[in-house]
């Protein structure tokens, strides 16, 4: 006996599907201390097998786990130079993720991200070097400074439009740079604070154990940034802001339903500024120094290029973009200025072709495909006609399909019945006994939907002037006049309605 072979059909037949017990109650693990679930499973009913199936709806957590896990596992085996590249990548990715919160979630086009990082880094480093505060406390001073600085910066954001605010924040970065490099206490180091204490012991600095420890720290920093992103973007604040995201109308709508989106934006800004303060303090510790170059436009543009290449407003975009740009910028250091040109060219090419960076390419392709499919279907479908195959696949009520098919066949049959003699018969006697063919046609007309029907309008009471109007088929919407012809005999009007219906039938 030969083995039966089954061919998998349908959309995404390669996807793994669980087969939970249909009789058992559904149990899902929750994140401790919250009502969230770890993964977004959905149980669906398979019409063919009549069984229950379980699919993973949101696969992003899987990709995050795989990517970050691979990074954590692989890095300790890399050579020293690569370990520091990976550490720098982690720092940049953390900054970018937090910046994404400001640009994407809050929708504030701020360019002061590095200014916040730098200012809080400077404050934390100064506290450590000049006041002798031990290094763990730097991780508290940093966010406090970032919080205050962010609150000051956020205040004008509700008043100014996007570009104007971007300019303002760029000005703030410039003011910071000038201020720091003018400080008298730092002139002999060119504005830099050096000899900052760190979580890496001093004799390990730039040695392999120190590098590994540094990587561990930066990796935790990236995880922390992603956690902040998740907590802000996907919880209450992010949900509120999603309502008022794209346009002025959305903002008006959000206000109308009682969402104080300005306040929510300010909170997102301040929270991510505080987190950027942590990054700043960490930055000073990691390098054991901090210099005014952190406020420079070039550094900012490099970070901006990362976000743009990965996809503006997406956390995965921020991380992927940081990986690409850091690899080119720090990994191919022997190329000189050419590598900045490469980064700029990648940025241009990605922006010309992709709407939302590399990570948005998939969504963009799907949108494109769906739009084209919709257009193609719209070109082919005939109103009132039979359903096209792909439309039929998506219509859940199959009864509808048979009804439409039957109607279409009926119309085909009736169309051939319509002859000049038939029309002549109706013209002679619109009411009364009809031949079999005419009776069938009239029956079909009577049975039709309201939207296809016409009414006769008597122009003035007790006067023999009639007009033909078409019924809208929508409750409360009055019939409208079809044309300007007037009939003085009601029989002519009946016949005109008949002819209109015949026309519609022949056209369909």
């Amino acid at each position, binding site marked *: 006996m030969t083995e039966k072979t089954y061919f998998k059909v349908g959309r995404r037949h390669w996807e793994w599907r669980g087969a939970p017990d249909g009789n058992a109650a559904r149990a899902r693990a929750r994140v401790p201390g919250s009502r969230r679930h770890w993964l977004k499973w959905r149980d669906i009913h398979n019409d063919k097998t009549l069984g229950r199936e379980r699919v993973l709806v949101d696969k992003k957590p899987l990709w995050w786990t795989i990517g970050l896990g691979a990074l954590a596992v692989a890095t300790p085996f890399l050579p020293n130079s690569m370990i520091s590249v990976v550490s720098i990548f982690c720092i940049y990715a953390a900054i970018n993720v937090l910046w994404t919160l400001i640009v994407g979630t809050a929708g504030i086009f701020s360019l002061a991200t590095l200014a916040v990082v730098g200012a809080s880094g400077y404050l934390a480093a100064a506290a450590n070097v000049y006041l002798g505060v031990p290094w763990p406390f730097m991780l508290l001073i940093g966010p406090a400074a970032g919080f205050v600085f962010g609150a000051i910066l956020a205040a004008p954001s509700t008043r*100014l439009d996007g570009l104007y605010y971007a*300019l303002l924040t760029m*000005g703030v970065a*410039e003011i910071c740079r000038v201020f720091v490099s003018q400080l008298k206490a730092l002139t002999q180091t060119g504005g830099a604070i050096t000899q900052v204490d760190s979580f890496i012991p001093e004799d390990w600095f730039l040695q392999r154990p120190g590098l590994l420890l540094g990587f561990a720290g930066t990796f935790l920093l990236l995880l922390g940034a992603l956690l902040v992103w998740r907590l802000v973007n996907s919880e209450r604040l992010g949900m509120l802001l999603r309502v008022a995201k794209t346009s002025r109308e959305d903002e008006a709508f959000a206000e109308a339903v009682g969402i104080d989106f300005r306040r929510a934006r300010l909170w997102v800004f301040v929270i991510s500024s505080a987190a950027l303060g942590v990054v700043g303090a960490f930055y000073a510790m990691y390098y054991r120094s901090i210099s005014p170059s952190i406020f420079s436009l070039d550094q900012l543009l490099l970070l*901006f290029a990362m976000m743009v290449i990965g996809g503006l407003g997406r956390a995965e975009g921020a991380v992927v973009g940081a990986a690409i740009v850091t690899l080119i910028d720090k990994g191919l250091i022997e190329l*000189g200025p050419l590598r900045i040109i490469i980064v700029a060219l990648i*940025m241009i090419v990605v*922006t*010309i072709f992709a709407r939302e960076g590399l990570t948005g390419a998939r969504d963009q392709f799907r949108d494109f495909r769906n739009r084209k499919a919709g257009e193609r279907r719209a070109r082919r479908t005939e109103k009132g006609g039979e359903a096209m195959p792909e439309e039929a696949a998506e219509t859940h009520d199959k009864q509808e399909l048979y009804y439409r098919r039957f109607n279409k066949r009926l119309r085909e049959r009736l169309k051939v019945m319509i002859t000049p003699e038939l029309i002549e018969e109706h013209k002679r006697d619109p009411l009364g006994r009809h031949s079999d063919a005419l009776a069938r046609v009239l029956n079909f007309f009577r049975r039709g939907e309201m939207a296809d029907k016409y009414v006769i309008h008597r122009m003035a009471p007790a006067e023999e002037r009639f007009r033909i109007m078409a019924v809208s088929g929508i409750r409360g919407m009055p019939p409208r006049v079809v044309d300007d012809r007037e009939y003085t005999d009601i029989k002519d009007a009946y016949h005109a309605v008949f002819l209109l219906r015949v026309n519609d039938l022949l056209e369909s």
Partner: protein
Amino acid sequence: MDLGLIVYALNLASIYALMAIGISILWSSVGIINMAHGATFAVSGYAAWVVTGALKPVIAASLGQTALASAAMAGALVGSALIAGAICGAIIYALAFLPIHDKPNYPVRALIITLGLNIATVQGLLWWFGPRNQGLPKIFGFGRWEVWGTRIRYDQAGTIIGAAIIMALTLGWLRYSRRGLEVRAMMQNAEGAAYSGISRQATALPVLMLTGALAGMAAALLSQTIFVSPTAGVIPLVKGLTIALLGGLGSVPGAMIGALLVGFLEAGVGATPFLGQRYVMFATFTFIIAVLIIRPRGIGGLLDDTRE
């Protein structure tokens, strides 16, 4: 404030106005915030340097040391800068306008592309020519005039007059010519413009080339005062952008008033003893931020009162 300071302020203001007007016109007609304006500026400066360097022996051989020779030199310098600027404009048109102008998110994407162009061009110049400053021939000569006891250098006077002429020509073109009318119509309603037979693609190219040429003119004029270098475009770009914003993006009169204000402010701050040159940027930004917080739509918001 003495006359020399006023001349210096006007000198700054005319260069800034050339940059700011280009950015402003471009935003309102084509919808691009042109971050590559600084690159256009630097490229034009280098083009003028290369062309004048190549033509110098030719002109010297054929015309000698006459006034005609210096006129030919000036013509070569300004002409090459203008042409290079216009070519840069055409490149921006081909990369940042044509492929994406009817795609979603167009203004932000155009800004990013021009920013990328700016970075790539500056780095490319750095790679090709090296970071050294290059001096251009002085087309206005080295002399100075004595006016009411103050000395005015030829190059300052030439810059102010040249910029004024160019701006007058541009504004006149926008106001009185048919093409200018089309540009203004397109600025205000793209659909209405299409129904009036005005093609967006066909109108954007001359606008981009014009604004590129404006940046080239600014480069040619500024090269009389400072040297040409790969990063020479950054400061004019930032200044032009901030002044265009100060004037209320899209408003040409606003941009000119803004340029005058900032020119005088910078000259004043630079001359004030306890502030000095190093605080010029600082003062400008503080001033503009203050203005924008008080009037969020800039100076143009005061001038414009039409109903949408």
